[in-house]
């Protein structure tokens, strides 16, 4: 059955101190109902959804409020019942930064009756994929890539579906809790995915530091009795949860730059996505909830909460007992790959998996930054096999050509190099800036090249016009000379001369 030798690790990576026990000892709280929702239209990778409701309209939980703009993007649904308060621009956390996007704002009421829904019926395969898009299901690991798109990538045969429950970020425990409480649903979702992609095997990957989840999943595998699901526990190593790292750890094959895991015969899906898919297939419920880990020392009751998409972070924190003392930092995502935001007025989106609050009193003073001593510690830990110290040097010298050669764009910003750097250089921060600068440089050089080309064309056109005019004049003179030989014209010229002389 199993064709692959299961490797146990990937290149690079670091061991990190776990902070999961801050939030993983409580059950998922399921009674959180925010007073208002800010539902962004740009929650998925690709173009934004188009709002399909009017201000003042009463809507039910699960109703479509944003239609997909293109064929292969996903819809957005109302996560609670209520009335549309406004449709306006609002700051929204997206891919590493806060930007503004059109949002539908819903004043919720406590009726909360779900719009009548039945398990969906499908005529064919394509129908199923369209339905998944219309249910708004995207990858819940963090990138929010439309699930149907990922399942439909058919560049080569998919042999193995990898169900990603690794969750290597030290603070996040939402997938852990989900697997503990909903193991059967997760596996059922995985089986449905397997059917869609035509894989023969599903491997559920869980890091060894989640014994309860491992137990729950192995029990569920026995209950389901399917022979094509296999559970693998892998050593706790950051960043195993990365798609490419996971494929490498399981198959020993490196996913080439610019290619996807499907090109080596694998598809990775997050356990949360499998659960969302099962909810849709079994109950007809679109993606309107996600589990968010609220953790850190700055919040009174750290726990995992099933949050309606669009709930303001400030209300979520209040639900978890509010801030504990003065909070110095609010991080969205994990402490390694996440980013700091300066306001709690942002909504939870489909890609928000964790909110970390750090307490001012207990935050250690940041280390002093020293120059690079070229020790090379960062090189063996880079999971993408880059040379961080060389990249840093090229960035300092603003050598964009060199940055391209060193593979800057391949950096996954995992932060392993930051952890081991003895000089405490914030390498990833520099690499993010370098990526931005390089993109600008590429853009402006494209503009310059186009301008040069157009200038050349204009110069050519003008000179050829000039040459044409010259030639025309010369030809005319020539023809006048020719025609002046004609007798009649000669006589006329003579007459004209005489008249001039008389004057």
């Amino acid at each position, binding site marked *: 059955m199993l064709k692959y030798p299961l490797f146990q690790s990937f290149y690079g990576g670091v061991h990190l101190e776990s902070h999961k026990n801050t939030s993983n000892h409580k059950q998922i709280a399921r009674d959180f109902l925010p007073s208002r929702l800010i539902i962004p239209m740009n929650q998925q990778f690709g173009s934004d959804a188009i709002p399909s409701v009017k201000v003042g309209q009463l809507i039910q939980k699960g109703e479509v409020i944003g239609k997909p703009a293109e064929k292969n993007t996903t819809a957005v649904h109302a996560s609670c019942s209520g009335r549309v308060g406004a449709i306006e621009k609002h700051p929204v956390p997206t891919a590493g930064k806060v930007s503004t996007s059109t949002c539908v704002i819903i004043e919720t009421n406590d009726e909360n009756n779900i719009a009548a829904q039945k398990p969906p019926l499908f005529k064919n395969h394509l129908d199923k994929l369209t339905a998944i898009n219309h249910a708004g299901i995207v990858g819940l690991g963090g990138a929010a890539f439309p699930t149907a798109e990922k399942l439909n990538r058919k560049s080569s045969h998919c042999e193995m579906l990898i169900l990603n429950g690794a969750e290597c970020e030290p603070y996040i425990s939402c997938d852990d809790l989900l697997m503990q409480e909903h193991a059967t649903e997760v596996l059922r979702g995985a089986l449905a995915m397997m059917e869609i992609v035509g894989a023969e095997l599903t491997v559920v990957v869980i890091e060894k530091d989640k014994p309860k989840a491992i137990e729950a999943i192995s029990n569920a595998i026995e209950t389901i009795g399917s022979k094509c699901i296999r559970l693998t526990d892998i050593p706790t190593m950051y960043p195993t949860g990365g798609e490419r790292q996971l494929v490498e750890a399981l198959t020993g094959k490196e996913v080439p730059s610019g290619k996807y895991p499907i090109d080596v015969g694998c598809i990775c899906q997050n356990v949360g996505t499998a659960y969302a898919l099962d909810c849709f297939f079994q109950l007809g419920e679109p993606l309107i909830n996600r589990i968010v880990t609220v953790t850190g020392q700055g919040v009174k009751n750290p726990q995992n909460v099933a949050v309606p998409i669009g709930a303001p972070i400030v209300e979520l924190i209040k639900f978890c007992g509010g801030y504990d003392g003065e909070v110095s930092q609010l991080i969205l995502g994990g402490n390694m790959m996440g980013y700091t935001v300066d306001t709690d007025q942002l909504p939870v989106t489909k890609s928000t998996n964790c909110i970390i609050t750090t307490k001012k009193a207990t935050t250690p003073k940041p280390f002093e930054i020293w120059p690079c001593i070229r020790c090379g510690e960062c090189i063996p830990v880079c999971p993408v096999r880059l040379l961080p110290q060389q990249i840093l040097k090229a960035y300092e010298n*603003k050598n964009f050509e060199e940055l391209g050669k060193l593979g800057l764009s391949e950096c996954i910003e995992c932060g392993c190099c930051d952890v081991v750097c003895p000089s405490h250089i914030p390498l990833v921060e520099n690499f993010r800036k370098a990526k931005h600068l390089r993109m600008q440089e590429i853009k*402006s050089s494209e*503009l*310059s*090249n*186009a*301008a*040069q080309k*157009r*200038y*050349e*064309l*204009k*110069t050519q056109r003008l000179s050829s016009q000039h040459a044409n005019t010259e030639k025309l004049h010369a030809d005319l003179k020539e023809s006048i000379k020719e025609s002046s030989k004609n007798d009649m014209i000669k006589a006329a010229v003579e007459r004209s001369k005489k008249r001039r002389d008389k004057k």
Partner: protein
Amino acid sequence: MATATVIFAGIAIVLAILLIVSSHYLSTTENEVIDKIESLLPRIQCAQCGYPGCRPYAAAIVTDKADINLCPPGGNETVRRLAKFLGSDFSPVTKYSTTANLNEIAFISEELCIGCNLCLRACPVDAIVGTHQSMHTVISDHCTGCRLCIPPCPVDCISLVSRNA
């Protein structure tokens, strides 16, 4: 003594021939040097250096030994690149007033335009379209923000706006 002289003279002659041949076959032509210099310039075609375009300036650097610090849009960064390539000394850019740059583009106010055609002729990259007696407009993707269209306009209807706005 005589043998040694002959041997060394022989080596010298062989090396001289090698040098002459290689300089003939491996030489960089003037055009290649001009190409390279042009690629180091921002190529906005603003003519703020005093030459009609970036290529004429690049040619002037090579043939007339023009100063390398005349390009205001390129700034000191460009001078540094040129100095490195040409092996000359760095000196900061002298002109700094109203520098043309790629972050801005020209915008024609449609109510004011009288269709005089003068801006169209001034544009070095053919980024303006329009015809006599008709409203003109700027193709924003092609505009380099060189500002050459602004002085000829008799009704002052051209302004610069941010490229991303």
